[in-house]
Protein backbone atom coordinates (compact mmCIF):
# COMPACT_ATOMS: atom_id res chain seq x y z
CA UNK A 1 0.00 0.00 0.00
CA UNK A 2 2.84 2.36 0.66
CA UNK A 3 4.23 2.27 -2.82
CA UNK A 4 6.38 5.18 -3.93
CA UNK A 5 4.50 5.42 -7.22
CA UNK A 6 1.11 5.59 -5.56
CA UNK A 7 1.26 9.31 -5.00
CA UNK A 8 2.19 9.89 -8.62
CA UNK A 9 -0.90 8.06 -9.94
CA UNK A 10 -3.47 10.65 -10.92
CA UNK A 11 -7.01 9.47 -10.38
CA UNK A 12 -10.21 9.73 -12.36
CA UNK A 13 -13.18 11.58 -10.85
CA UNK A 14 -16.04 9.35 -9.73
CA UNK A 15 -18.42 10.92 -12.24
CA UNK A 16 -16.06 10.11 -15.14
CA UNK A 17 -15.62 6.57 -13.79
CA UNK A 18 -19.40 6.11 -13.76
CA UNK A 19 -19.51 7.19 -17.43
CA UNK A 20 -16.67 4.76 -18.21
CA UNK A 21 -18.39 1.85 -16.47
CA UNK A 22 -21.76 2.61 -18.10
CA UNK A 23 -20.25 2.82 -21.60
CA UNK A 24 -18.25 -0.33 -20.89
CA UNK A 25 -21.33 -2.35 -19.89
CA UNK A 26 -23.43 -1.02 -22.78
CA UNK A 27 -20.75 -1.86 -25.34
CA UNK A 28 -19.90 -5.24 -23.83
CA UNK A 29 -23.59 -6.15 -24.03
CA UNK A 30 -23.87 -4.89 -27.60
CA UNK A 31 -20.77 -6.76 -28.76
CA UNK A 32 -21.40 -9.99 -26.87
CA UNK A 33 -25.20 -10.30 -26.62
CA UNK A 34 -25.41 -12.95 -29.36
CA UNK A 35 -22.71 -15.13 -27.79
CA UNK A 36 -24.33 -14.71 -24.39
CA UNK A 37 -27.73 -15.65 -25.76
CA UNK A 38 -26.27 -18.72 -27.46
CA UNK A 39 -24.52 -19.84 -24.28
CA UNK A 40 -27.80 -19.56 -22.36
CA UNK A 41 -29.48 -21.65 -25.05
CA UNK A 42 -27.04 -24.43 -24.20
CA UNK A 43 -28.03 -24.37 -20.51
CA UNK A 44 -30.33 -27.08 -19.10
CA UNK A 45 -34.05 -26.43 -19.48
CA UNK A 46 -35.76 -24.67 -16.60
CA UNK A 47 -37.30 -21.39 -15.44
CA UNK A 48 -33.87 -19.70 -15.07
CA UNK A 49 -33.00 -20.51 -18.69
CA UNK A 50 -36.37 -19.28 -19.93
CA UNK A 51 -36.01 -16.05 -17.95
CA UNK A 52 -32.48 -15.28 -19.14
CA UNK A 53 -33.37 -16.13 -22.73
CA UNK A 54 -36.19 -13.58 -22.60
CA UNK A 55 -33.80 -11.01 -21.11
CA UNK A 56 -30.97 -11.52 -23.59
CA UNK A 57 -33.21 -12.11 -26.61
CA UNK A 58 -33.89 -8.45 -27.59
CA UNK A 59 -30.27 -7.23 -27.18
CA UNK A 60 -29.07 -10.29 -29.11
CA UNK A 61 -31.53 -9.56 -31.94
CA UNK A 62 -30.47 -5.89 -32.04
CA UNK A 63 -26.79 -6.85 -31.94
CA UNK A 64 -27.29 -9.29 -34.81
CA UNK A 65 -29.27 -6.76 -36.86
CA UNK A 66 -26.57 -4.11 -36.40
CA UNK A 67 -23.83 -6.69 -37.03
CA UNK A 68 -22.23 -5.87 -33.72
CA UNK A 69 -21.54 -9.54 -33.12
CA UNK A 70 -19.05 -9.56 -36.00
CA UNK A 71 -15.91 -8.38 -34.12
CA UNK A 72 -16.19 -11.21 -31.60
CA UNK A 73 -16.97 -13.70 -34.32
CA UNK A 74 -13.98 -12.50 -36.34
CA UNK A 75 -11.55 -12.83 -33.40
CA UNK A 76 -13.05 -16.18 -32.49
CA UNK A 77 -12.65 -17.54 -36.03
CA UNK A 78 -9.17 -16.18 -36.65
CA UNK A 79 -7.58 -16.76 -33.24
CA UNK A 80 -9.92 -18.23 -30.63
CA UNK A 81 -10.85 -21.38 -32.51
CA UNK A 82 -7.21 -21.92 -33.47
CA UNK A 83 -6.14 -21.76 -29.81
CA UNK A 84 -9.02 -23.86 -28.53
CA UNK A 85 -9.34 -26.34 -31.42
Amino acid at each position, binding site marked *: *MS*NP*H*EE*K*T*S*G*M*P*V*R*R*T*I*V*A*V*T*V*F*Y*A*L*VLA*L*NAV*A*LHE*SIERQPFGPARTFWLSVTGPPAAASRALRLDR*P*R*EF*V*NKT*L*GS*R*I*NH
Partner: protein
Amino acid sequence: MLFPTAVFALFFFAVFAAHWSLAAWPRTRKAFLLCASLFFYGYWSWKFALMLLASALFNHAAARRMHALPVPEASKKRCWLVAALVFNLGLLGFWKYTGFLIGDVILPILRMASIRIGPDAVQWLVGFQEELFPVLSRIILPVGISFFTFQALSYVIDVYRGKTVPAASWLDFANYLAFFSQLVAGPIVRAKDLVPQMEQMPHRASSLDSGRAAFLILSGLFKKTVLANWLASRLADPVFAWPAAYSGPDVLLGVYGYAIQIYCDFSAYSDIAIGTALLLGFKFPDNFNAPYLATSLQDFWRRWHISLSTWLRDYLYIPLGGSRRGTSRTAVNLLITFLLGGLWHGAAWTFLLWGAFHGVYLILERAFVTGWQRLFGSRTDPDSAPGLSKVVFAGAGRFFARIWVFHLVCFSWILFRAGEVELVREMLGAIAAWRNAVSEVVLWETTAVLIVITGFITQFFDGRRLWRLYQGMSRLPGWLLGAIAALVLTVILALGPEGVAPFIYFQF
Protein backbone atom coordinates in the same frame (compact mmCIF):
# COMPACT_ATOMS: atom_id res chain seq x y z
CA MET B 1 -20.54 -16.48 -7.90
CA LEU B 2 -17.48 -16.56 -10.14
CA PHE B 3 -15.80 -13.35 -11.30
CA PRO B 4 -15.61 -14.18 -15.02
CA THR B 5 -19.35 -14.82 -15.45
CA ALA B 6 -22.32 -12.81 -16.69
CA VAL B 7 -24.02 -13.22 -13.30
CA PHE B 8 -21.14 -11.51 -11.52
CA ALA B 9 -21.01 -8.79 -14.19
CA LEU B 10 -24.68 -8.05 -13.58
CA PHE B 11 -24.22 -8.18 -9.81
CA PHE B 12 -21.25 -5.83 -9.91
CA PHE B 13 -23.05 -3.32 -12.11
CA ALA B 14 -25.95 -3.18 -9.65
CA VAL B 15 -23.58 -2.81 -6.68
CA PHE B 16 -21.48 -0.16 -8.44
CA ALA B 17 -24.56 1.89 -9.37
CA ALA B 18 -26.14 1.66 -5.92
CA HIS B 19 -22.85 2.23 -4.06
CA TRP B 20 -22.26 5.58 -5.75
CA SER B 21 -25.94 6.56 -5.79
CA LEU B 22 -26.15 6.08 -2.02
CA ALA B 23 -23.05 8.20 -1.31
CA ALA B 24 -25.14 10.83 0.51
CA TRP B 25 -26.53 8.21 2.95
CA PRO B 26 -23.49 6.51 4.48
CA ARG B 27 -25.35 4.18 6.84
CA THR B 28 -27.71 2.95 4.13
CA ARG B 29 -24.72 2.58 1.85
CA LYS B 30 -22.86 0.45 4.39
CA ALA B 31 -25.95 -1.69 4.99
CA PHE B 32 -26.37 -2.11 1.24
CA LEU B 33 -22.74 -3.12 0.78
CA LEU B 34 -23.07 -5.75 3.51
CA CYS B 35 -26.30 -7.09 1.98
CA ALA B 36 -24.57 -7.24 -1.42
CA SER B 37 -21.61 -9.13 0.05
CA LEU B 38 -23.91 -11.58 1.83
CA PHE B 39 -25.90 -12.06 -1.37
CA PHE B 40 -22.61 -12.74 -3.21
CA TYR B 41 -21.64 -15.39 -0.64
CA GLY B 42 -25.18 -16.66 -0.11
CA TYR B 43 -25.59 -17.18 -3.87
CA TRP B 44 -23.45 -20.27 -3.25
CA SER B 45 -24.91 -21.18 0.17
CA TRP B 46 -27.10 -18.96 2.34
CA LYS B 47 -26.35 -21.14 5.40
CA PHE B 48 -22.68 -20.24 5.19
CA ALA B 49 -23.60 -16.59 4.68
CA LEU B 50 -25.29 -16.79 8.09
CA MET B 51 -22.15 -18.37 9.51
CA LEU B 52 -20.12 -15.48 8.12
CA LEU B 53 -22.51 -13.06 9.77
CA ALA B 54 -22.19 -14.92 13.09
CA SER B 55 -18.40 -14.77 12.78
CA ALA B 56 -18.59 -11.01 12.26
CA LEU B 57 -20.82 -10.61 15.32
CA PHE B 58 -18.65 -12.71 17.62
CA ASN B 59 -15.29 -11.32 16.55
CA HIS B 60 -16.43 -7.73 16.79
CA ALA B 61 -17.95 -8.35 20.23
CA ALA B 62 -14.69 -9.96 21.42
CA ALA B 63 -12.63 -7.08 20.03
CA ARG B 64 -14.83 -4.47 21.71
CA ARG B 65 -14.70 -6.30 25.04
CA MET B 66 -10.91 -6.53 24.87
CA HIS B 67 -10.57 -2.88 24.01
CA ALA B 68 -12.98 -1.78 26.76
CA LEU B 69 -11.09 -3.64 29.51
CA PRO B 70 -8.63 -1.50 31.50
CA VAL B 71 -4.92 -2.41 31.51
CA PRO B 72 -4.92 -4.18 34.97
CA GLU B 73 -7.47 -6.67 33.68
CA ALA B 74 -5.01 -8.26 31.29
CA SER B 75 -6.10 -11.78 32.18
CA LYS B 76 -9.72 -11.06 31.18
CA LYS B 77 -8.41 -9.55 27.99
CA ARG B 78 -6.43 -12.71 27.33
CA CYS B 79 -9.55 -14.79 27.99
CA TRP B 80 -11.39 -12.90 25.26
CA LEU B 81 -8.48 -13.39 22.90
CA VAL B 82 -8.38 -17.12 23.64
CA ALA B 83 -12.16 -17.32 23.13
CA ALA B 84 -11.82 -15.59 19.76
CA LEU B 85 -8.92 -17.84 18.74
CA VAL B 86 -10.84 -20.97 19.76
CA PHE B 87 -13.93 -19.75 17.90
CA ASN B 88 -12.10 -18.92 14.66
CA LEU B 89 -9.70 -21.85 14.65
CA GLY B 90 -12.53 -24.16 15.76
CA LEU B 91 -14.64 -23.03 12.84
CA LEU B 92 -11.75 -23.52 10.41
CA GLY B 93 -10.71 -26.78 12.03
CA PHE B 94 -14.19 -28.29 11.95
CA TRP B 95 -15.00 -27.47 8.34
CA LYS B 96 -11.56 -27.96 6.89
CA TYR B 97 -9.72 -30.56 8.89
CA THR B 98 -12.33 -32.94 10.39
CA GLY B 99 -12.31 -35.24 7.36
CA PHE B 100 -8.52 -35.26 7.15
CA LEU B 101 -8.03 -35.80 10.87
CA ILE B 102 -10.47 -38.69 11.04
CA GLY B 103 -9.97 -40.22 7.59
CA ASP B 104 -6.20 -39.77 7.17
CA VAL B 105 -4.88 -39.73 10.73
CA ILE B 106 -7.17 -41.43 13.27
CA LEU B 107 -8.67 -44.21 11.12
CA PRO B 108 -5.31 -45.51 9.79
CA ILE B 109 -4.10 -45.74 13.42
CA LEU B 110 -7.30 -47.53 14.44
CA ARG B 111 -6.94 -49.90 11.49
CA MET B 112 -3.44 -50.89 12.54
CA ALA B 113 -4.56 -51.28 16.15
CA SER B 114 -7.63 -53.36 15.24
CA ILE B 115 -5.54 -55.76 13.15
CA ARG B 116 -3.35 -56.37 16.17
CA ILE B 117 -6.32 -56.80 18.52
CA GLY B 118 -8.17 -59.35 16.43
CA PRO B 119 -11.08 -60.07 14.04
CA ASP B 120 -13.75 -58.67 16.38
CA ALA B 121 -12.04 -55.30 16.50
CA VAL B 122 -11.66 -55.28 12.70
CA GLN B 123 -15.36 -56.07 12.29
CA TRP B 124 -16.30 -53.29 14.72
CA LEU B 125 -14.10 -50.84 12.86
CA VAL B 126 -15.62 -51.76 9.49
CA GLY B 127 -19.11 -51.12 10.89
CA PHE B 128 -17.99 -47.89 12.51
CA GLN B 129 -16.48 -46.66 9.23
CA GLU B 130 -19.68 -47.46 7.35
CA GLU B 131 -21.57 -45.20 9.74
CA LEU B 132 -18.91 -42.52 9.83
CA PHE B 133 -18.20 -41.94 6.14
CA PRO B 134 -21.69 -40.67 5.19
CA VAL B 135 -21.45 -38.18 8.09
CA LEU B 136 -17.99 -37.00 6.96
CA SER B 137 -19.14 -36.64 3.37
CA ARG B 138 -21.79 -34.16 4.50
CA ILE B 139 -19.11 -31.74 5.72
CA ILE B 140 -18.68 -29.34 2.81
CA LEU B 141 -15.90 -26.79 3.06
CA PRO B 142 -17.34 -23.26 3.01
CA VAL B 143 -15.72 -21.31 0.17
CA GLY B 144 -13.07 -18.86 1.34
CA ILE B 145 -13.28 -19.85 5.02
CA SER B 146 -9.47 -19.81 5.32
CA PHE B 147 -9.37 -16.26 4.04
CA PHE B 148 -12.05 -14.66 6.15
CA THR B 149 -10.97 -16.60 9.26
CA PHE B 150 -7.44 -15.20 8.89
CA GLN B 151 -8.87 -11.70 8.45
CA ALA B 152 -10.94 -12.12 11.63
CA LEU B 153 -7.90 -13.44 13.51
CA SER B 154 -5.74 -10.52 12.43
CA TYR B 155 -8.45 -8.13 13.68
CA VAL B 156 -8.83 -9.62 17.17
CA ILE B 157 -5.08 -10.13 17.60
CA ASP B 158 -4.30 -6.56 16.51
CA VAL B 159 -6.94 -5.19 18.89
CA TYR B 160 -5.47 -7.34 21.69
CA ARG B 161 -1.97 -6.08 20.93
CA GLY B 162 -3.23 -2.50 20.80
CA LYS B 163 -2.08 -2.13 17.19
CA THR B 164 -5.56 -1.18 16.05
CA VAL B 165 -8.82 -0.14 17.66
CA PRO B 166 -12.13 -1.95 17.16
CA ALA B 167 -14.25 -0.80 14.23
CA ALA B 168 -16.57 2.10 15.01
CA SER B 169 -19.58 -0.12 14.45
CA TRP B 170 -20.40 -3.76 13.84
CA LEU B 171 -21.53 -2.82 10.34
CA ASP B 172 -18.05 -1.51 9.49
CA PHE B 173 -16.40 -4.67 10.77
CA ALA B 174 -18.91 -6.91 8.98
CA ASN B 175 -18.21 -5.02 5.76
CA TYR B 176 -14.47 -5.53 6.31
CA LEU B 177 -14.89 -9.26 6.92
CA ALA B 178 -17.47 -9.99 4.24
CA PHE B 179 -16.50 -7.54 1.48
CA PHE B 180 -17.30 -9.52 -1.67
CA SER B 181 -14.28 -8.44 -3.71
CA GLN B 182 -11.78 -10.37 -1.60
CA LEU B 183 -14.08 -12.62 0.42
CA VAL B 184 -13.44 -15.99 -1.18
CA ALA B 185 -9.82 -15.91 -2.33
CA GLY B 186 -8.10 -12.87 -0.87
CA PRO B 187 -5.99 -10.85 -0.70
CA ILE B 188 -6.08 -11.21 3.10
CA VAL B 189 -6.50 -7.53 3.91
CA ARG B 190 -5.57 -6.38 7.41
CA ALA B 191 -8.14 -4.62 9.56
CA LYS B 192 -5.90 -1.56 9.94
CA ASP B 193 -5.94 -1.15 6.15
CA LEU B 194 -9.59 -1.79 5.33
CA VAL B 195 -11.66 -1.03 8.45
CA PRO B 196 -10.88 2.73 8.31
CA GLN B 197 -11.94 2.72 4.65
CA MET B 198 -15.19 0.98 5.60
CA GLU B 199 -15.79 3.52 8.35
CA GLN B 200 -15.18 6.53 6.14
CA MET B 201 -16.63 5.14 2.90
CA PRO B 202 -15.27 6.66 -0.30
CA HIS B 203 -16.51 10.15 -1.05
CA ARG B 204 -18.08 11.08 -4.39
CA ALA B 205 -15.65 13.99 -4.69
CA SER B 206 -12.65 11.66 -4.41
CA SER B 207 -10.82 10.45 -7.46
CA LEU B 208 -10.52 6.77 -8.31
CA ASP B 209 -7.60 4.85 -9.74
CA SER B 210 -9.88 3.80 -12.60
CA GLY B 211 -7.12 3.26 -15.15
CA ARG B 212 -5.41 0.77 -12.87
CA ALA B 213 -8.76 -0.81 -11.99
CA ALA B 214 -9.63 -1.34 -15.67
CA PHE B 215 -6.19 -2.76 -16.42
CA LEU B 216 -6.25 -5.15 -13.45
CA ILE B 217 -9.76 -6.42 -14.20
CA LEU B 218 -9.00 -6.98 -17.88
CA SER B 219 -5.59 -8.55 -17.32
CA GLY B 220 -7.12 -10.73 -14.60
CA LEU B 221 -9.86 -11.90 -16.95
CA PHE B 222 -7.27 -12.59 -19.65
CA LYS B 223 -5.08 -14.58 -17.28
CA LYS B 224 -8.00 -16.61 -15.98
CA THR B 225 -10.25 -17.19 -18.98
CA VAL B 226 -7.62 -17.49 -21.70
CA LEU B 227 -4.36 -18.62 -20.12
CA ALA B 228 -5.21 -20.49 -16.90
CA ASN B 229 -8.16 -22.34 -18.43
CA TRP B 230 -6.13 -23.39 -21.46
CA LEU B 231 -3.15 -24.50 -19.40
CA ALA B 232 -5.42 -26.47 -17.07
CA SER B 233 -7.38 -28.30 -19.74
CA ARG B 234 -4.54 -28.90 -22.23
CA LEU B 235 -1.45 -29.41 -20.09
CA ALA B 236 -1.75 -29.65 -16.32
CA ASP B 237 -4.95 -31.68 -15.88
CA PRO B 238 -4.15 -34.42 -18.43
CA VAL B 239 -0.55 -34.83 -17.25
CA PHE B 240 -1.44 -34.92 -13.55
CA ALA B 241 -4.35 -37.28 -14.25
CA TRP B 242 -2.18 -39.93 -15.92
CA PRO B 243 1.54 -39.16 -15.95
CA ALA B 244 2.43 -42.71 -17.04
CA ALA B 245 0.84 -42.00 -20.42
CA TYR B 246 3.25 -39.17 -21.19
CA SER B 247 6.94 -38.94 -21.92
CA GLY B 248 9.34 -37.06 -19.62
CA PRO B 249 9.39 -33.87 -21.72
CA ASP B 250 5.57 -33.81 -21.76
CA VAL B 251 5.33 -34.31 -17.99
CA LEU B 252 7.88 -31.54 -17.53
CA LEU B 253 5.80 -29.23 -19.74
CA GLY B 254 2.74 -30.22 -17.70
CA VAL B 255 4.55 -29.14 -14.54
CA TYR B 256 5.64 -25.85 -16.14
CA GLY B 257 2.05 -25.47 -17.34
CA TYR B 258 0.71 -25.96 -13.82
CA ALA B 259 3.22 -23.47 -12.40
CA ILE B 260 2.02 -20.84 -14.86
CA GLN B 261 -1.63 -21.90 -14.47
CA ILE B 262 -1.66 -21.49 -10.70
CA TYR B 263 0.06 -18.12 -11.00
CA CYS B 264 -2.37 -16.91 -13.70
CA ASP B 265 -5.37 -18.31 -11.85
CA PHE B 266 -4.60 -16.98 -8.39
CA SER B 267 -3.07 -13.65 -9.40
CA ALA B 268 -6.07 -13.14 -11.72
CA TYR B 269 -8.41 -13.42 -8.76
CA SER B 270 -6.31 -10.94 -6.77
CA ASP B 271 -6.16 -8.56 -9.73
CA ILE B 272 -9.93 -8.64 -10.28
CA ALA B 273 -10.51 -8.26 -6.52
CA ILE B 274 -8.19 -5.24 -6.34
CA GLY B 275 -9.67 -3.77 -9.54
CA THR B 276 -13.33 -4.09 -8.53
CA ALA B 277 -12.53 -2.70 -5.08
CA LEU B 278 -10.78 0.27 -6.70
CA LEU B 279 -13.89 1.04 -8.75
CA LEU B 280 -15.85 1.19 -5.50
CA GLY B 281 -13.18 3.45 -3.99
CA PHE B 282 -11.40 0.90 -1.76
CA LYS B 283 -7.67 0.18 -1.84
CA PHE B 284 -6.13 -3.24 -1.21
CA PRO B 285 -2.45 -4.10 -0.94
CA ASP B 286 -0.73 -5.93 -3.81
CA ASN B 287 -0.71 -9.71 -3.53
CA PHE B 288 1.85 -10.68 -6.19
CA ASN B 289 5.09 -9.25 -7.44
CA ALA B 290 6.52 -11.34 -10.29
CA PRO B 291 7.12 -14.44 -8.12
CA TYR B 292 8.89 -16.48 -10.78
CA LEU B 293 11.59 -13.84 -11.02
CA ALA B 294 12.65 -14.56 -7.44
CA THR B 295 16.35 -15.21 -6.91
CA SER B 296 15.91 -17.19 -3.70
CA LEU B 297 13.08 -19.08 -2.05
CA GLN B 298 12.96 -16.38 0.62
CA ASP B 299 12.59 -13.85 -2.18
CA PHE B 300 9.84 -16.00 -3.72
CA TRP B 301 7.79 -15.75 -0.52
CA ARG B 302 8.12 -11.99 -0.64
CA ARG B 303 6.53 -12.04 -4.08
CA TRP B 304 3.95 -14.86 -3.95
CA HIS B 305 0.63 -14.48 -2.09
CA ILE B 306 2.17 -11.58 -0.18
CA SER B 307 -0.87 -11.11 2.05
CA LEU B 308 -0.62 -14.72 3.33
CA SER B 309 3.16 -14.76 3.75
CA THR B 310 3.11 -11.48 5.69
CA TRP B 311 0.18 -12.80 7.77
CA LEU B 312 2.12 -15.95 8.67
CA ARG B 313 5.19 -13.83 9.45
CA ASP B 314 3.34 -11.38 11.72
CA TYR B 315 0.96 -13.75 13.51
CA LEU B 316 2.94 -16.99 13.63
CA TYR B 317 6.67 -16.76 12.84
CA ILE B 318 7.43 -13.63 14.88
CA PRO B 319 5.27 -14.62 17.92
CA LEU B 320 7.13 -17.99 17.89
CA GLY B 321 10.34 -16.00 18.31
CA GLY B 322 11.23 -15.39 14.66
CA SER B 323 14.99 -15.31 14.15
CA ARG B 324 15.77 -13.77 17.54
CA ARG B 325 16.39 -16.95 19.52
CA GLY B 326 19.35 -18.59 17.84
CA THR B 327 19.89 -20.70 14.75
CA SER B 328 18.16 -23.92 15.80
CA ARG B 329 15.09 -22.15 17.20
CA THR B 330 14.84 -20.08 14.00
CA ALA B 331 14.91 -23.30 11.99
CA VAL B 332 12.13 -24.81 14.13
CA ASN B 333 10.07 -21.61 13.79
CA LEU B 334 10.49 -21.61 10.02
CA LEU B 335 9.48 -25.25 9.78
CA ILE B 336 6.40 -24.78 11.99
CA THR B 337 5.36 -21.72 9.99
CA PHE B 338 5.64 -23.47 6.66
CA LEU B 339 4.05 -26.72 7.85
CA LEU B 340 1.04 -24.74 9.06
CA GLY B 341 1.18 -22.63 5.89
CA GLY B 342 0.98 -25.86 3.91
CA LEU B 343 -1.94 -27.12 5.99
CA TRP B 344 -3.70 -23.77 5.53
CA HIS B 345 -3.88 -24.58 1.82
CA GLY B 346 -5.57 -27.89 2.32
CA ALA B 347 -6.08 -30.89 4.53
CA ALA B 348 -3.85 -33.46 2.86
CA TRP B 349 -0.44 -35.00 3.44
CA THR B 350 0.81 -33.55 0.16
CA PHE B 351 0.14 -29.99 1.38
CA LEU B 352 2.07 -30.82 4.54
CA LEU B 353 4.90 -32.16 2.40
CA TRP B 354 4.76 -29.02 0.29
CA GLY B 355 5.06 -26.85 3.40
CA ALA B 356 7.85 -29.06 4.76
CA PHE B 357 9.77 -28.78 1.50
CA HIS B 358 9.60 -24.98 1.59
CA GLY B 359 10.43 -24.84 5.29
CA VAL B 360 13.43 -27.19 5.06
CA TYR B 361 14.79 -25.50 1.95
CA LEU B 362 14.48 -22.08 3.60
CA ILE B 363 16.39 -23.37 6.64
CA LEU B 364 19.16 -24.67 4.36
CA GLU B 365 19.17 -21.45 2.34
CA ARG B 366 19.49 -19.44 5.52
CA ALA B 367 22.31 -21.63 6.82
CA PHE B 368 24.09 -21.26 3.48
CA VAL B 369 23.82 -17.46 3.57
CA THR B 370 25.07 -17.34 7.17
CA GLY B 371 27.98 -19.66 6.32
CA TRP B 372 28.87 -17.57 3.28
CA GLN B 373 28.84 -14.43 5.40
CA ARG B 374 31.16 -16.01 7.94
CA LEU B 375 33.55 -17.13 5.21
CA PHE B 376 33.62 -13.94 3.20
CA GLY B 377 32.74 -11.35 5.81
CA SER B 378 29.57 -9.97 4.21
CA ARG B 379 27.26 -8.30 6.71
CA THR B 380 23.96 -8.75 4.95
CA ASP B 381 21.22 -9.83 7.31
CA PRO B 382 19.76 -13.18 6.20
CA ASP B 383 16.31 -11.71 6.80
CA SER B 384 16.86 -8.80 4.43
CA ALA B 385 15.72 -9.04 0.82
CA PRO B 386 16.59 -10.66 -1.42
CA GLY B 387 18.79 -12.83 0.80
CA LEU B 388 20.80 -15.46 -0.97
CA SER B 389 21.19 -13.82 -4.34
CA LYS B 390 22.36 -10.51 -2.91
CA VAL B 391 24.99 -12.18 -0.78
CA VAL B 392 26.20 -14.83 -3.19
CA PHE B 393 25.21 -13.97 -6.71
CA ALA B 394 25.70 -10.98 -8.92
CA GLY B 395 25.06 -10.24 -12.59
CA ALA B 396 24.66 -13.43 -14.63
CA GLY B 397 24.55 -15.43 -11.41
CA ARG B 398 21.16 -13.93 -10.67
CA PHE B 399 19.82 -15.21 -13.95
CA PHE B 400 20.83 -18.76 -13.01
CA ALA B 401 19.50 -18.23 -9.50
CA ARG B 402 16.12 -17.32 -11.01
CA ILE B 403 16.10 -20.47 -13.14
CA TRP B 404 17.07 -22.58 -10.11
CA VAL B 405 14.37 -21.07 -7.87
CA PHE B 406 11.75 -21.39 -10.61
CA HIS B 407 12.50 -25.10 -10.91
CA LEU B 408 12.48 -25.57 -7.15
CA VAL B 409 9.06 -23.97 -7.00
CA CYS B 410 7.90 -26.08 -9.96
CA PHE B 411 9.00 -29.20 -8.09
CA SER B 412 7.08 -28.07 -5.03
CA TRP B 413 3.97 -27.52 -7.19
CA ILE B 414 4.02 -31.24 -7.98
CA LEU B 415 3.54 -31.90 -4.25
CA PHE B 416 0.88 -29.18 -4.12
CA ARG B 417 -1.13 -30.38 -7.11
CA ALA B 418 -0.77 -34.14 -6.82
CA GLY B 419 -3.15 -34.81 -3.93
CA GLU B 420 -1.53 -38.22 -3.33
CA VAL B 421 2.07 -39.13 -2.58
CA GLU B 422 1.87 -41.98 -5.12
CA LEU B 423 1.13 -39.49 -7.89
CA VAL B 424 4.18 -37.41 -6.90
CA ARG B 425 6.30 -40.54 -7.31
CA GLU B 426 4.74 -41.25 -10.74
CA MET B 427 5.32 -37.68 -11.93
CA LEU B 428 8.96 -37.67 -10.84
CA GLY B 429 9.43 -41.18 -12.24
CA ALA B 430 8.08 -40.10 -15.63
CA ILE B 431 10.44 -37.10 -15.74
CA ALA B 432 13.40 -39.22 -14.64
CA ALA B 433 12.65 -41.92 -17.23
CA TRP B 434 12.55 -39.12 -19.83
CA ARG B 435 11.82 -40.97 -23.09
CA ASN B 436 12.49 -44.53 -21.96
CA ALA B 437 8.96 -45.47 -20.85
CA VAL B 438 6.96 -43.39 -23.37
CA SER B 439 9.01 -42.03 -26.24
CA GLU B 440 6.43 -39.94 -28.09
CA VAL B 441 6.38 -36.21 -27.29
CA VAL B 442 2.89 -34.85 -27.98
CA LEU B 443 2.38 -31.73 -25.85
CA TRP B 444 5.28 -29.57 -27.03
CA GLU B 445 3.28 -27.68 -29.65
CA THR B 446 3.79 -24.05 -30.66
CA THR B 447 0.51 -22.96 -29.02
CA ALA B 448 1.40 -24.66 -25.73
CA VAL B 449 4.85 -23.11 -25.58
CA LEU B 450 3.49 -19.68 -26.57
CA ILE B 451 0.81 -19.82 -23.86
CA VAL B 452 3.31 -20.87 -21.19
CA ILE B 453 5.63 -18.02 -22.24
CA THR B 454 2.73 -15.52 -22.36
CA GLY B 455 1.67 -16.58 -18.87
CA PHE B 456 5.23 -16.10 -17.66
CA ILE B 457 5.38 -12.64 -19.22
CA THR B 458 2.16 -11.54 -17.48
CA GLN B 459 4.22 -11.37 -14.27
CA PHE B 460 5.59 -8.09 -15.56
CA PHE B 461 2.10 -6.61 -15.01
CA ASP B 462 2.48 -7.14 -11.25
CA GLY B 463 3.11 -4.41 -8.71
CA ARG B 464 3.29 -0.91 -10.11
CA ARG B 465 5.59 -1.66 -13.04
CA LEU B 466 2.98 -0.23 -15.41
CA TRP B 467 1.99 2.80 -13.36
CA ARG B 468 2.63 5.16 -16.25
CA LEU B 469 0.09 3.19 -18.30
CA TYR B 470 -2.42 3.37 -15.43
CA GLN B 471 -1.88 7.11 -15.24
CA GLY B 472 -2.43 7.48 -18.97
CA MET B 473 -5.59 5.37 -18.84
CA SER B 474 -6.97 7.42 -15.94
CA ARG B 475 -6.47 10.60 -17.98
CA LEU B 476 -8.63 9.33 -20.86
CA PRO B 477 -12.21 10.59 -21.20
CA GLY B 478 -14.58 8.22 -19.38
CA TRP B 479 -16.44 7.11 -22.52
CA LEU B 480 -13.16 6.32 -24.30
CA LEU B 481 -11.78 4.26 -21.41
CA GLY B 482 -15.11 2.38 -21.24
CA ALA B 483 -15.13 1.75 -25.00
CA ILE B 484 -11.53 0.52 -25.12
CA ALA B 485 -12.12 -1.75 -22.12
CA ALA B 486 -15.26 -3.18 -23.77
CA LEU B 487 -13.36 -3.95 -26.99
CA VAL B 488 -10.50 -5.58 -25.10
CA LEU B 489 -12.93 -7.69 -23.07
CA THR B 490 -14.69 -8.80 -26.25
CA VAL B 491 -11.35 -10.00 -27.64
CA ILE B 492 -10.60 -11.83 -24.37
CA LEU B 493 -14.01 -13.52 -24.40
CA ALA B 494 -13.53 -14.53 -28.04
CA LEU B 495 -10.13 -16.05 -27.25
CA GLY B 496 -11.25 -18.01 -24.20
CA PRO B 497 -12.98 -21.38 -24.25
CA GLU B 498 -16.65 -21.66 -23.32
CA GLY B 499 -17.30 -22.06 -19.60
CA VAL B 500 -15.01 -21.07 -16.78
CA ALA B 501 -13.51 -23.42 -14.20
CA PRO B 502 -13.59 -22.23 -10.57
CA PHE B 503 -10.47 -20.52 -9.24
CA ILE B 504 -7.95 -22.94 -7.71
CA TYR B 505 -7.80 -21.00 -4.46
CA PHE B 506 -11.57 -21.30 -3.92
CA GLN B 507 -10.92 -24.71 -2.37
CA PHE B 508 -8.68 -23.19 0.28
